[in-house]
């Protein structure tokens, strides 16, 4: 492999750098600008801080805002056109997710889109129509039922069984820490065929109605993500016709799940970016006007140090998210890029919120202060959607593999 430096092609004339040398364009397209300003209008009307604070206080879901998003067409971004969607690139999607979350709403946009896309990709016609109808009403179409008491990061250790017999499927098992199941009509269950040895081929994907006989739930109270409920779900001989509940191909559960996982990591990263930006803006504004010892605390170096390092992290997060989205759009292989991005954004996002909380001091931990909610909600992303440590597991192996 040659080690000499490649010579740059000669310039066409002295003093003029041809376009091919200036390919990094950080400007938004006109469409992105218009989408963002339309989203801004929608956020101002349908999702002000008072709305989010109320939801958080009462542990309710942002149904009316999601409905407004749907009416403005934002909920069908990236869907195939035959389902009323408009093709959309990853960069635009993360821009929108970032903006909604910058309003201060956790998991504000994107995840339910991607989940729906799983069904649109693999589901039957009946399943597709059902999911689209739910999205149109502002509802979360289904909750992801993967995690079990014995299977978190190690999800192939799951034991929930799906036994196929006479055109029916019977489920038995327990899922836990399932997000938004209590507000969803369906649960997207990952369950194993007990007769298949290889876990990679044993797991299939199923759409199970939350009100099916044999499904019971137990609400889990958390200290964060109040706008999404959490619960345990007990499946006790839940029996459904196979053609209704099986999604895609039996045994392909894992493969189907992996379809959009890079995009999901990216949306989570964008969520962290948006909320961290919100926390930073709140803290910087506070520092500029909170007077102690006769001057704004923003004049003190220790405050400025925090703010500076927070700004650096936000810039890094932003570049990371946009570059990763750009790679997805270009069809470039991500390898561990998604894992690196998710790890960095979740960890740095929380650090930014933590420093922001410190800047606020006592006032910040009062229930009415937005920063207290942002701090709690950002903490969850360090394990939600893949833990910080699993991201190391993914990326670390890849790095060593690449260098051997």
């Amino acid at each position, binding site marked *: 492999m040659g080690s000499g430096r490649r010579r740059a092609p000669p310039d066409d004339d002295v003093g003029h750098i041809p376009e091919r040398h200036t390919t990094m364009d950080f400007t938004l397209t*006109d469409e992105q*600008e*218009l989408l963002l300003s339309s989203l801004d209008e929608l956020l101002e009307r349908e999702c002000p801080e008072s709305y989010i604070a109320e939801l958080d206080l009462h542990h309710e879901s942002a149904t009316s805002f999601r409905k407004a998003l749907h009416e*403005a067409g934002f909920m069908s971004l990236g869907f195939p056109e035959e389902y009323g969607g408009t093709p959309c690139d990853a960069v635009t999607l993360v821009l929108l997710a970032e903006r909604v979350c910058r309003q201060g709403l956790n998991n504000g946009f994107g995840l339910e889109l991607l989940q729906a896309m799983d069904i649109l990709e693999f589901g039957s016609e009946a399943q597709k129509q059902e999911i689209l109808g739910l999205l149109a009403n502002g509802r979360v179409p289904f909750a992801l039922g993967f995690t079990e008491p014995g299977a978190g990061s190690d999800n192939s250790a799951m034991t929930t069984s799906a036994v196929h017999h006479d055109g029916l499927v019977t489920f038995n098992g327990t899922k836990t820490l399932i997000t938004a199941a209590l507000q969803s009509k369906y649960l997207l269950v990952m369950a194993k065929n007990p007769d298949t040895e290889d876990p990679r081929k044993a797991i299939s994907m199923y759409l199970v109605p939350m009100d099916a006989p044999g499904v019971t739930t137990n609400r889990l109270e958390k200290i964060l993500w109040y706008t999404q409920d959490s619960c345990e779900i007990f499946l006790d001989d839940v029996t459904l016709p196979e053609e209704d509940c099986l999604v895609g191909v039996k045994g392909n559960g894992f493969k189907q799940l992996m379809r959009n996982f890079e995009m999901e990591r990216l949306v989570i990263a964008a969520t962290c970016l948006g909320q961290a930006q919100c926390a930073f803006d709140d803290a910087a504004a506070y520092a500029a006007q909170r007077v102690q010892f006769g001057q704004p605390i923003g004049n003190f170096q220790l405050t400025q140090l925090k703010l500076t390092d927070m700004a650096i992290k936000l810039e890094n997060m932003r570049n990371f998210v946009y570059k990763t989205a750009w790679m997805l759009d270009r069809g470039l292989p991500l390898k561990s890029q998604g894992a690196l991005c998710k790890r960095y954004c979740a960890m740095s996002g929380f650090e930014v919120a933590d420093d922001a909380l410190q800047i606020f001091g006592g006032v910040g931990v009062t229930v009415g202060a937005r920063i207290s909610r942002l701090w709690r909600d950002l903490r969850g992303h360090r394990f939600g959607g893949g833990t910080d440590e699993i991201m190391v597991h993914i990326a670390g192996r890849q790095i060593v593999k690449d260098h051997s």
Partner: protein
Amino acid sequence: MKIVVAYKWAPNPQDLEVRADGTVDASRGKPAVSEYDPVAFELARRLADETGGEVVGLTVGAAAIDTPLARKAALSRGLDRLVLVADDALVGADSTRLAAVLAAAVRAIGDVDLVLAGDSSVDVAEGQVPLTTAAELGWLGLGRVTAVSPATDGLVVERDTPAGVAVLTVRTPVVLAATADAVVPRVAGMKDILAAAKKPVEVLALAALDVPAPAVTLATLGTAKPSGGDRQAVLFDGADPAAAASQLVGALRSAGVL
């Protein structure tokens, strides 16, 4: 029904800087569809959908109003197509001149049944242009419109008057200027934004339009920052509300207004 939405593409004067000599520096302002115009777009779209009609956007101004972003921003608001007159001869044009050009463009578009506009622009905010445009066209022009619906031979229009809400049957063609709260305009939808680039745009040359020459001209004798702005701004700290209140009341009594 052929409906023209006459709108303005201009920056918010809040974002502009006024130099000490009173001249305005427009370089920092970011132009956008004027704040109160979306109402007209919404009414036009609803009316066109009801009657199977067409919505044509129309705006006039300096050459700089014609950019890809400006075109898409308008086309993403429910227009079927867009017509522009962008000519630097219109820099600093007054309301009568703008109205004359708008009217000429409406004539050039041809067979227009209704011109809808907002009730005032974000930068000049006088509500004059739509009404002068009606006069230039020789049509009736009505302001403070709060509702418009199709009728057998024209429209039924509701508008705000000091006496109450007046209901009128109106024959087309007509110019209607709608109040900012006549309807809640939808936000520009994602599909419309992404489809905007493909919609037809026609640029009309100012020189080719039949626009009457201005008869009355204004000779500028001077410009200045607005007068009456030297207020002394004595501020009290509201951290102790009772003390601040008492100080303020004292000051107002001394000033003789209480």
